[in-house]
């Protein structure tokens, strides 16, 4: 089972076409293993990036050094997954 402990989802809002091109470049860097949940489209539209814990620092530095604004949409993906699993289990145990 693949765990996502410490993975964050960053909501990134590109201000201009240059930002979009930079984000597309980020997607090409396979070693960072960034999973684009929502791809950058046009300036002002958000992109959502799931970033493994091991790449978090590098990705955040990349965004900050290029002046690309972002916020943390999901603090720890695994926490949400655990919550989801718990809800499913509870639902299965419930008598209807």
């Amino acid at each position, binding site marked *: *089972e*693949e765990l*996502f402990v410490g993975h964050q*989802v960053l*909501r990134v809002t590109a201000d201009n076409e240059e930002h979009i091109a930079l984000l597309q470049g980020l997607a090409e860097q*396979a070693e960072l293993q960034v*999973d*684009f*949940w*929502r*791809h950058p*489209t*046009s300036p002002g539209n*958000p992109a*959502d990036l*799931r970033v493994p814990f091991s790449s978090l620092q590098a990705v955040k530095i990349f965004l900050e050094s290029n002046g690309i604004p972002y916020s943390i*949409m*999901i603090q720890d*993906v695994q926490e*949400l*997954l655990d*919550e*989801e699993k718990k*809800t*499913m289990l509870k*639902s*299965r145990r*419930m008598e*209807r």
Partner: protein
Amino acid sequence: STGTFDFASYHTIDEIYNWLDTLVENHPHLVSKIQIGQSYENRPLYVLKFSTGGSNRSAIWLDTGIHSREWITQATGIWTANKIAEEYGQDPSITAILDSMDIFFEIVTNPDGFAFTHSSNRLWRKTRSLNAGSSCVGVDANRNWDAGFGGSGSSSNPCSETYHGPYPNSESEVKAIVDFILGHGNVKSVISIHSYSQMLLFPYGYKTEPAPDYQELNELAKKAVSDLAAVYGTKYTYGSIVDTIYQADGTTVDWAYDNGVKYSFTFELRDTGRYGFLLPSSQIIPTATETWPALLDIMLHVLEHPY
């Protein structure tokens, strides 16, 4: 819930496949289950057929879950299929539609990927086919269609989430739908459901020129998102894929449109970006409920505008 099935919870593929049989048992004169093929890992590809009779009637195709991690779509599919069955004979719109047309509904379009999201990787998007010469598994089934295949917005790298595959229809999950729709020959609408960007989109995705039916599709999308928003105020954007998101080649609805299916739409359901693919199950029913009037708008328009 109906019997022991909880529509407000996420379910495994076994639970969903069992429920398909329950739905058929509960509505034997309206609903049947057909198998249109097998997935890469040999799981059956099931389609629900809603029909009140007649041979080779014109039809509407619905599918959910081609990207397996988008769980809200399979869950919405289940609720919607049940709604169609329950509302026939009650709701005048769905009754009128089914008195003249058939509806085909594939709820788990990517069963291997879906099973994988339950067992190994909750965030799996692609199919599970092996790629020759690569250790990376799977193809993005929504880049595998023969409509601008291999171009922008898809990747030739098997490790990418948008890998288009070695050739069009290489994925058995895609080929099964292609064969079914072309073999049927009378499908008038294809509605493919995704998440989570709150959009209603139509062709084209692989080229920038407007579709010949742009005006009509745009007006219909406008009405559908307005009726959707009337339920809980959820705001959707709408337009052609290329104008609204980005150029994306090899997608389901472009293929459908290029093959004569005029009313081709793709939905991007909730959410607003707080949970992404991990939308809490408490939002399944609100999501499905608000989507229903928009789906009805499209289906009713198809009924009233034969071609």
